[in-house]
């Protein structure tokens, strides 16, 4: 199985430790992992802002870079969802889109493909799980609160493999944190209020950490927590799963 690692732009620039944890975890579980150096961004920031055509060359490069891979794994549910759902349309009329079937969020990959049943690490802490919108509603990482379907959470399943962890969830369990890419700067007041409400709901669980599959949501809430001097810590799910590696 040939695995390509996609480290989205903002993870690359702001949270390289999340990329490192993903790499370590994948290496531990499957061995060889390829990281093409030409990668930059999936194109979602421009597309959500209304300029999806600008993502077309990025989609083409993405296809080319990862063409030899069986799976492309990314530590970011939102970026993975963007590739999965939008690349086929962006590449329409050019060539058949392969990335849509190959791209996976790292949690999805561990849960559905590798079917991980044990992990070596310990994380003796209380965490509040941030169920990010695109993870829940586009990649179905957990059962969306709006739907009448059996309740499940792939992320909780994975986290429960880590020794010592206590996983909590906030009230309004999958309400948006208000990041939304350029939404955060075009609608700053609503965005900050959404983020503050979300942050407070996480804090109310009594957790020491907020964790989730998207560093973008974490980054947004972290920015608010810093401004408000809230002591809660932030950690990507993959960093917990890679504990001890």
């Amino acid at each position, binding site marked *: 199985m040939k695995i390509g690692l996609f480290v989205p732009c903002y993870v690359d620039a702001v949270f390289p430790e999340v990329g490192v944890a993903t790499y370590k975890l994948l290496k531990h579980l499957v061995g060889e992992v390829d990281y093409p150096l030409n990668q930059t961004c999936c194109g979602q920031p421009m597309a959500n802002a*209304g300029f999806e055509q600008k993502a077309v060359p990025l989609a083409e490069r993405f296809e080319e870079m990862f063409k030899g891979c069986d799976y492309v794994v990314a530590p970011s549910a939102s970026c993975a969802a963007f590739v999965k759902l939008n690349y086929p349309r962006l590449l329409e009329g050019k060539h058949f889109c392969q990335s849509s079937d190959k791209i996976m969020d790292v949690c999805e990959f561990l849960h559905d493909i590798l079917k991980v049943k044990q992990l070596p690490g310990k994380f003796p802490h209380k965490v509040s799980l941030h169920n990010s919108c695109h993870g829940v509603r586009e990649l179905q990482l957990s059962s969306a*609160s709006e739907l009448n379907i059996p309740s499940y959470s792939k992320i909780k399943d994975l986290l429960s493999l880590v020794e010592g962890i206590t996983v909590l969830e906030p009230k309004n369990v999958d*309400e948006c944190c208000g990041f939304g890419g350029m939404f955060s700067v075009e609608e700053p007041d609503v965005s900050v209020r*959404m983020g503050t409400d979300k942050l407070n709901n996480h804090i109310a669980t009594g957790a020491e950490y907020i964790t989730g599959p998207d560093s973008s949501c974490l980054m947004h809430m972290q920015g608010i927590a810093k401004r408000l001097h809230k002591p809660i810590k932030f950690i990507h799910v993959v960093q917990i799963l890679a504990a001890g590696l």
Partner: protein
Amino acid sequence: MSTKHSRAARLFLAQKEDSQWHNQSLWYVREKRDSFAMGLPEWEELRRLSSEIKRHTITHLDKYVEQFAQQAEANGVIVHWAKDAQEHNNIVYDILKQHQAKKLVKSKSMLTEECHLNDYLISKGIDVVETDLGERILQLMKIPPAHIVMPAIHLKRQQVGKLFEEKLHTEKGNSDPTYLAHAARLHLRNEFMTADAGMTGANFGVAATGDVVVCTNEGNADMSTSLPKLHIVSMGIEKIIPNYDSLSVFVRLLARSATGQPSTTYTSHFRKARPGGEMHIVLVDNGRSDIIGNEGHWETLKCLRCGACMNTCPVYRRSGGYSYTYFIPGPIGINLGMLRSPKEYSDNVSACSLCCSCDNVCPAKVNLSEQIYRWRQDLDSLHKANQMKKFISNRLTYIYNHPKLYRMCLKFAPIINHLPRFMVYNGLNAWGEGRELPTFAKHSFGSMWKKGKVK
């Protein structure tokens, strides 16, 4: 980088307690909706059926509209056809004039809001009285609805108490809900008894029978049609459904989605005029038949107008109905406004974080967030794209298309971490209004990989 919506939202949120209360009130309705949706094991199957019935009806609407009109006429109902709002208003006025009607009592109708019927009729000398309690409150206050199902949800009982003191001469300082509701009831009772005509909207029109189905909680539609002898129904053509089997799907979804009730208190079926009375149905197009042919946006016609997308929308809850420039707010309103006039209503397209919660609550599975995403793609060609967003998107694209340049940017990005605060946190940085910037890593993942430091 702002829109009319974002600026109005800022003012709304500046009233911190009121805006929190607004958010919580609507979230409470979402929770009620959840508890009733979760109470039906077949809920998702109902949503699927509803979506498919709507798709079928809309793609065969010519046939069903004709059938509906034929059946209604066979029942003795007088059917009118209005291609737009003006025609609709003229038809309604003509009917009233023919009957020398001076006072019209109305149950809630978003279509008449869409057509600005009240203003038109009032300008012609008709006394128009809204009889839905929320709508009546707003009419007395001279303000528009802030929500399509709970039009006065943004008001507190104290405000209503004050209004009633002035308009209905209730006791000073008494804002007890039961007392106020009783006062409204007495006041409206008199309006019903002295009205010359009653108007209702329509939740559904059943093609097989020509029936009009109206769902209310207050029974005001029934009062509006039981006292005056003249009943006028104002109805968009997309309200037509094939038959009673399909109605059975929709009535199970509608009230559960809208207000978290198993059904509305009254589900009234109107087939023909009362003895000695007259019933008219005005079928309104007003742009709807054009939407059928709109590949990216036809699904808006599936909407049941339950308002569930507003109650779940984290942006609507935190910005209020009046922050949107179209009279229907929230996710469905963003889309309907763009269909009405993209140039006029493009300011609402910013009011979405693309969280997709609306898609999941919608009882007709309208792809609301996908449509908002699509409208954003159209803004540039409409000359409505935000120039700052366009500039940022262009710069980002350039950097992302040149991996070496991108790597260099990441190398120098940490400089931002050390800039003096005033250079980073100023009026130009909307992120910094309520958030600290993230800290750029000294060594990006890519640079560590290149140096073989990722092991």
